[in-house]
């Protein structure tokens, strides 16, 4: 039962990917599939066990094909290297940048430690810090988002 529904779901998802379609509903042989953009929808096998519904829903997160709208002025600054993220020059110092701060391009926003070297990471755009994605002392990978900056 599940593989069949998965197949249906997959084809529906690929059908609407890249279109403006917000909602699709299919019904066949007592089974109903509804997909709505922006939230998780599932197959609704009429009169069948609800367990199947949960499983189908869990393998097809609709969010994957319909990411929340991104404001083009919201710039995501990504980590240029692998290492450990530090928000301040030492544990007692104030953070280089926090939410709400206005930063210049080239201003140091954090430190990423790689191979015992403290690399100062500079803002690649000017603007207001909307979000800090990484917690102090946590590892970051290459290309992982560090900050969301609303460009000025």
């Amino acid at each position, binding site marked *: 039962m599940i593989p069949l529904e998965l197949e249906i779901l997959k084809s529906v998802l690929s059908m609407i990917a890249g279109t403006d379609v917000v909602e699709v509903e299919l019904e066949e042989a007592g089974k109903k599939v509804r997909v709505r953009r922006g939230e998780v929808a599932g197959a609704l096998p009429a009169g069948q066990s609800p367990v199947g519904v949960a499983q189908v829903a869990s393998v097809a997160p609709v969010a994957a094909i319909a990411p929340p709208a991104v404001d083009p002025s919201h710039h995501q600054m990504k980590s240029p290297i692998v290492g*450990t993220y530090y928000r301040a020059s030492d544990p007692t110092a104030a953070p280089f940048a926090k939410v709400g701060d206005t930063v210049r391009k080239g201003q140091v926003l954090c430190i990423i430690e790689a191979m015992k070297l403290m690399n100062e990471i500079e803002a690649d755009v000017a603007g207001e810090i909307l979000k800090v994605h990484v917690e102090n002392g946590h590892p970051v*990978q290459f290309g992982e988002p560090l900050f969301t900056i609303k460009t000025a």
Partner: protein
Amino acid sequence: MFKKVLIANRGEIALRVIWACKELGLKTVAVYSEADRNSLHVKFADQAICIGPAKSKDSYLSVPAIISAAEITGADAIHPGYGFLAESAKFAEVCEACRITFIGPSPQAIKLMGDKSRAKKAMIKAGVPVVPGSPGVLESEEAAVGVARDIGFPVIVKASAGGGGRGMRIVREAKDLSSAFRAAQAEAVAAFGVPDLYIEKYIEQPRHIEIQVMADQRGNIVTLHERECSIQRRHQKLIEEAPSPATLMNEKLRRRMGKTATDAAAAVNYSNAGTIEFLLDAQGNYYFMEMNTRIQVEHGVTELVTGRDLVKEQILVAAEQALSFRQADIVLQGHAIECRINAEDPRTFAPSPGLIQHFWAPGGPGVRVDTFAHEGCLVSPHYDSMVAKLMTFGKDRNEAIARMRRALDAMVVEGIKTTIPLQRQIMDDPEFIAGKLDTAFMERFLKRTAAI
């Protein structure tokens, strides 16, 4: 024993190391470039860290990125695979300085064997035969005559700046040396602007025979016998097999070459997996070419005929354990052949990266496929063109060939061009079937088959 091993590589060898770690109960960390986000090594490792953009220089060759990835994941050992940083003495040194075990030989051994002239000197000192020749650039035509007389004809006169066959002359008799010397010198000046020449014994129709060595850090060295890798194009191996099908290869020669390889490894205090490459002539003389201080692409054929897992052994000896086998335990059984399936046009050898739309790996008795490929997988133009290693094993060479034929017939790689048709054709070639191999095999084969 290690707790967590980081694999500083990609593709099939990254998977091969992950399998070995899993069998040993060790956690694994994959590193990947942005181009490899969806690769299988990322999927099958316990953890995966993106270390940089697609360009190797900024990802798989970036020492700081890899060490940093080991530090943030708490990996206590790094397996370098082959290629990339596998033979970087500097990388091995940095690992050591960061207290991360480099799964391979010492930086000193890597450095020494990586320097051709120092390696040659060390080998001569250890009594390992090297291709005889002039110690350096020839001073004069008279000096060339003297050296040639000492080492015996035929000799080859080569431009020291040489390459591509220019500034090279094969001389079979003393009377021809003078004119050959002058011709080579003129060519060298014309081609490279440098008249410097040297002279070496010319090895006729040599086979590329290499000996697999495995050594622990307690001074135990075991050889896992030879591989024949004479089928190469522009020094890139295409088909390898174990043992060598040469008629002159027998237990006596095998033992002699094994002893030489052991001496070579002992001379540089070698530990971990390594390969000593030799040229073998038709008379059974062999000469040291170089030592590869890493696990090699073609290690699988040795595993098939010896029943030993070389990658697991690498990890164990790096963890300071003793070798799990002795020389007497290594018994050759059957025959194994490997075809390197490359994403290349089988006639022009032009690279053919792209999306693999359909993929099927053959199986059945005596077949092993080491690959990162699958349906929907992208063969990236950024990296090596090898898509899969197709290996077959049989009770004898004929069975291994028969299995390779049907495995090549059954293998499906659609969407890109591969070398499969070429290798399939070689499996039917009379010279190949007769085991008449030498390093010029491919040149002859391509000429022979182009005419058809």
